[in-house]
């Protein structure tokens, strides 16, 4: 099973850079063949990025009212509370991409979204201290999830090498 990791956000918008920074960090901490991408474009780019993937792990900044730096793991899109929104300066962000992909039946069979609670989205300000200090734990959890997904894939498809 092909697993793709997608760090999503905007490099210049405060905590919205978190997804991109996680992707950058994971490049040096996951096996060389891992498919890790940084997406700083509108949400339509996500649809193309997870096309043909058996599983996708998406990392994005979120606003739910929790403490900045809180890590959310969402494995079911439908269970999202109404108050939960992803950060996007585009009118078409992660939420819309998931909704559209579901309509078009092009969602990867396995989609996990890691949201990190943002504190601010100010231009050029960089990460909030709480978000920055949560990143190592977020990376560790994604590494574990990635390992589980790829080893599960190896178990279910032993004929492929």
């Amino acid at each position, binding site marked *: 099973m092909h697993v793709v990791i997608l760090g999503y956000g905007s490099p210049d918008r405060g905590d919205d850079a978190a997804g991109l920074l996680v992707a950058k960090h994971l490049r040096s901490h996951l096996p060389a063949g891992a498919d890790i991408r940084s997406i*700083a*474009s509108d949400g*339509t*780019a996500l649809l193309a990025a997870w096309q043909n993937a058996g599983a996708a792990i998406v990392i994005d900044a979120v606003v739910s009212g929790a403490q900045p730096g809180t890590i959310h793991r969402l494995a079911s899109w439908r269970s999202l509370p109404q108050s939960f929104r992803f950060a996007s300066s585009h*009118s*078409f962000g992660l939420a*819309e991409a998931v909704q*559209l992909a579901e309509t*078009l039946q092009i969602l990867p069979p396995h989609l996990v979204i890691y949201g990190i609670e943002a504190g601010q989205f100010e231009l050029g300000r960089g990460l909030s201290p709480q978000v920055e200090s949560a990143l190592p734990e977020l990376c560790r959890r994604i590494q574990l999830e990635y390992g589980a997904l790829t080893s599960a894939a190896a178990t279910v498809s032993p004929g492929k090498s």
Partner: protein
Amino acid sequence: MKTRRVIHVPVLARVEGEGGLYIRVQGGRVMDVKLNIYEPPRFFEAFLRGRSWQEAPDIVARICGICPIAYQMSCVQAMEQIFGLTVDPMVRLLRRLIYCGEWIESHTLHVGMLHAPDFLGYDDSLAMAKDHPQFVQDVLALKKTGNDLMGLLGGREIHPVSLCVGGFYRAPTRRQLQAMVGPLERARDLALRLLRRVAAFDFPDFNLDYEFVALSHPSEYAITEGRIVSNRGLNIPVTAYEDHFIEQHVAHSNALHSIRRQGGSYLVGPLARFNLNFAQLGEELSKLAQECGVSPPCRNPFRSIIVRMLETLFACEEALRLIACYEPPERPCVDVTPRAGIGTACTEAPRGLIYHRYQVDENGNILAAKIVPPTSQNQKQIEEDLRRVVDGMIDKSEAEITWRSEQAVRNYDPCISCATHFLKLHLERS
């Protein structure tokens, strides 16, 4: 008896930027139309003052995430005029090629995700996707090819980083461009399919006698350079732009309105380019245009959706042609020696003509900058279209008027962020 009705659309989401619409109807006639642009002023022209010529292309790219190339290209060409630079013909080719990428990406987004729902009767593209999944899949695939082309040449899709005064920081290899041939051929087929699809939409019978303004070039469908021409005899070099067009501040808009110096609105964008440069689309596309119900002069702005997709098809074909001609330049960029002066440039952004003027000192530091985006130029025309649109359907329901008004605004693919995001319609009848 006096009746007063108010239509209030809290958010018109399918435009870039924040704005509102106010329409006052009295005695069965439209008395006042205002496109209120309340997006805060962005002060880019002031940010540029004191900055080096080298920084300018990257600063102006931030004006828009959809059409950064239009800003960068106009900027670098104006600077090159000041410094007396001539770029390598292959650099010129690459500039036209990356601009094709921007046209494909921007036009497809607007046609497929923002404007098509108006014609098919949906509130948004998500709702439309349920009933028209193949249409939306085609749109996404076509847009992606435009983005990929921009990413390849520009280093990234949003706010590309490779364009500079004098050329590119890095030129691609032939092999890198060849990799785009297959995707562009598929994109061409998708564009043709989408073109036939949008041509079959229903269009209101609405025609106005516009002054169309666009760049025109002797040997190609103008994108990156040319003279400014109109269907009313205007034919001027870019340097004379400010002799013929002025900007006005109106109280209800944070974006300046451009008008002709002698007064009067004008239209820039796909419809203007199509009407003024039709022959340069080539024989096959010209024939195809006619088959699809558009031939010059096309004065129905609602049919701009057809022209936009025709231009997308053209951009795919043009990109393929350019790639076939490409040889990497010896050097991607010429050396720059700054000198004091004033330079101007116009290019054809997806939404229409864009004008830049810079004045720099002997070190190339910017003393003054003037940027006129296409939406500023179209604002007054949008208001005039709305006046006519509402006048022609005054007895219809408010829901119908609102729908048609929003559709009419989207005929222009307005980028309100560029011009200074949401449109609120306030219709007052008395």
